[in-house]
């Protein structure tokens, strides 16, 4: 029962996704690229960085990068929180 339902819904969803991605512009020939053209043209002038991806990461979409760094920080904190000893050591020192 579970197997059959699982397969049916899985196939339906994947069919939609596959059908969906064939409707996207042909690979390598994007329809619209205004934002990216602007960034590629102006990043050297506005940020002084030769690496456009770095310019996007740290200037145009810097809040994303801050969020990304925050997520890494969160995960580190989370891992250390979960692996901690649940009892304090005797406070000798």
């Amino acid at each position: 029962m579970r197997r059959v339902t699982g397969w049916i819904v899985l196939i339906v969803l994947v069919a939609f996704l596959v059908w969906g991605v064939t409707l996207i512009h042909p690979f390598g020939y994007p329809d619209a690229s205004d934002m990216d053209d602007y960034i590629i043209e102006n990043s050297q002038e506005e940020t002084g960085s030769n690496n456009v991806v770095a310019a996007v990461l740290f200037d145009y979409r810097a809040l994303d990068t801050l969020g990304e760094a925050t997520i890494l920080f969160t995960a580190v904190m989370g891992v250390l929180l979960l692996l901690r000893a649940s009892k304090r050591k005797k406070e000798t020192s």
Partner: protein
Amino acid sequence: MLTKIVRTVANQLILFIVIFGLYVIVHGHITPGGGFQGGAVVVSGIVMLLVAFSSQELKKLLRERVLSIVESSGAVIFIGLAFAGIGTVFFYNLLVGTPIFGRVPAIGPGPGDIWTGGVIPLMNFAVGLKVIAGLSAVVLALALFSGGEEVEE
């Protein structure tokens, strides 16, 4: 703890790995790479040390407390650089045009210049610090935990 050959080779290789990682971090704004990638390269070196030596030995080298401080300070540097621009707008790249990393390269393809990019190289550096400290803390903590040792507060 693996054989002596592995340990010796690891001892020699770690230098190159760290230098390559730092190169990737520092040149993040002119060549492919950046703080995350370079940090990951350095951490891969640390993982190599973890495999070659034991986690107990590595623990003496990298203290949990120190890693935590380095990571927090990396994050604070990053957010501080973002705050520096708040006179105009948060995240404003205020170093473009100043003597520090402020040169503007020739428009179009050309050789890179390390003194460009404004706050981008500094942010790369801060992120690199953070990634190195953070990921090595995670790897070390997981290795120590599987050896039965829990993280202290």
